[in-house]
């Protein structure tokens, strides 16, 4: 006979406290701001859901959200297939495996603002390696401080450079976990290379790729430092992604209420997309 008591709650308590201090309480302060207006001096007026309505109707928010989805969509569309292709072409064992893995991991070890600064210098038209090459060798007019297309090209290239190796590492981990017998059986069954990919490698990578897409989605959807250091959201507003816009409202204009409402909406979108994606990807899993 099992004894029933309520002791288990005490074991949950530390986690509860931790989560309260690093997540719940900070979020609740944001919720608090989002329904009030302040003119300074710590004086607040009740505003209800006005800020939410204002943000949801604002063209500026729609534009920033659109740019954010475009950015995230583009980097996912490049990084995931590219990462899979690189993982597929890596050696399975031997001396070159650690060499490949370490070399590829290097970009991930560089701090975000350093990445931004690096690419900023890299693309300077007159002295940057890429900028000089494009302008003076290829003769293409490339200046990301002037041209929105060049700015977009640069932030996409930077993110691909910075994060594709994460997808590679995850996909590679999925690939090496496939027993040799699968490849041998496929050979004997007369399967083509495409069939091996489609029916063996892809299904075995599905779980790690789900995680890879989820991580890259969340991370790129919340991206701030790198594009801020690189383009500062310009030229004009052309690379003002959601988080950059949010910081402009909160710290530039000191509109705490709208900024708080916007961050809650932002958070809700990130959460909703992640949840939808994860639920759809795992609904067929037997476990």
């Amino acid at each position: 006979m099992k004894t029933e008591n309520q002791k288990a709650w005490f074991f949950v308590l530390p986690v509860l406290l931790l989560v309260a201090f690093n997540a719940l309480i900070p979020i609740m302060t944001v919720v608090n701001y989002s329904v009030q207006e302040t003119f300074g001096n710590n004086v607040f007026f009740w505003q209800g859901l006005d800020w939410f309505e204002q943000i949801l109707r604002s063209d500026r928010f729609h534009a920033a959200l659109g740019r954010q989805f475009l950015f995230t969509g583009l980097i996912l569309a490049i990084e995931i297939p590219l990462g899979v292709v690189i993982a597929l072409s890596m050696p399975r064992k031997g001396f070159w495996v650690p060499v490949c893995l370490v070399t590829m991991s290097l970009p991930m070890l560089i701090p975000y603002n350093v990445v931004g600064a690096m690419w900023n210098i890299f693309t300077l038209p007159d002295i940057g390696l890429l900028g000089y090459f494009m302008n003076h060798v290829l003769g293409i007019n490339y200046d990301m401080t002037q041209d929105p297309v060049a700015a977009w090209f640069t932030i996409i290239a930077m993110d691909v450079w910075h994060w594709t190796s994460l997808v590679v590492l995850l996909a590679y981990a999925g690939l090496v976990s496939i027993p040799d017998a699968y490849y041998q059986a496929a050979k004997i069954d007369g399967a083509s290379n495409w069939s091996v990919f489609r029916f063996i490698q892809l299904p075995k990578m599905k779980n790690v790729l789900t995680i890879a897409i989820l991580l890259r989605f969340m991370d790129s959807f919340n991206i701030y430092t790198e594009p801020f250091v690189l383009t500062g959201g310009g030229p004009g507003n052309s690379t003002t992604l959601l988080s950059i816009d949010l910081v402009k409202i909160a710290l530039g204009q000191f509109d705490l209420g709208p900024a708080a409402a916007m961050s809650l909406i932002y958070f809700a979108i990130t959460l909703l997309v992640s949840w939808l994606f994860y639920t759809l990807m795992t609904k067929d899993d037997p476990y």
Partner: protein
Amino acid sequence: MAKITLSGLRHSYYPEPQGPDDYALKEIDLDWQDGGAYALLGPSGCGKSTLLNIISGLLVPSEGRVMFDDRDVTHLTPDQRNIAQVFQFPVIYDTMTVYKNLAFPLRNRGVDAETIDRRVREIAEMLEATDLLDQRAAGLSPDNKQKISMGRGLVRDDVNVVMFDEPLTVIDPHLKWKLRSKLKELHQRVRATMIYVTHDQTEALTFADQVVVMNQGVIVQIGTPVELFERPAHTFVGHFIGSPGMNVLPCELQGGTALLNGVEIPLEGPVTGTQAGRLEIGIRPEFITIGDTGIPARVCKTADIGRHRVVHAMAGTQKIAIIVTGPAPEQGEEIHLRFEPRQTRLYADGWLATEIGEAEK
């Protein structure tokens, strides 16, 4: 279907093998008759999987040739050799249904839809998996997964050989029996050459007409299950097959008679060969009787294993196992052992060194 000939086969996993110890397969010359049911039996690491992979084309041997009938296939891919292989752990295509899994080898070879449907349903029927056909393969139990991978091996009727690499390792014991007899039945029906790799003697002996016993990269004996049991060509075979295995007792030889602890032991017939090296008497526990005269021994323990009892005794410093069907002696009892002469053999350096005597022929 084809007769498979292996000639002068050697294989090493090292790029530049130095001595014989670097070879996983040491020198294999072997013919597999068309339509035979073979078992490849040996302990783990004896080279049987290497041999199998060389036949299937997953490995290219360091030396020697593989022939299917008169065609040299040593350097052909598995696909070109037209063979089927079932692996130790189930290999199934998770995202496909069972039906598509079974149809996969046929589809890849461009077989027409009607034939595919007929073959898949036949195989499913044989494996009692008809009601699984529409299920997604990922959700199957391990038993059923292995059934399906066996089915994929059997679905093509034009293969040269079907190979099984310890396919029943992951299967529940009660299902093992069923699948094993099913395989035997399938072999009789399709008459394809089948090679069954295992380290389990029961599996080998029930499935095969001919058992090939391997040890340390060498084929030690090829024979029917009865031959392997009754006249092991090597002490390894005697010890490996049978439960408990053959007693292997170091002995001396004086003028053609074997002496064990100074007692003369009659052998099955005259001793052959040079008789150099390590000399041993081989006698199976089944063929030793306990009596009033013979080799003196003391009982260490007896084990009742159901059908009979196994008595472990010490004759001097040598351990001997005896199988008795009647009442067994008590522990510590002094007994005398008599070896059945027709089943008592001399082994020199592990290899059989007696002939069947004139009187027994």
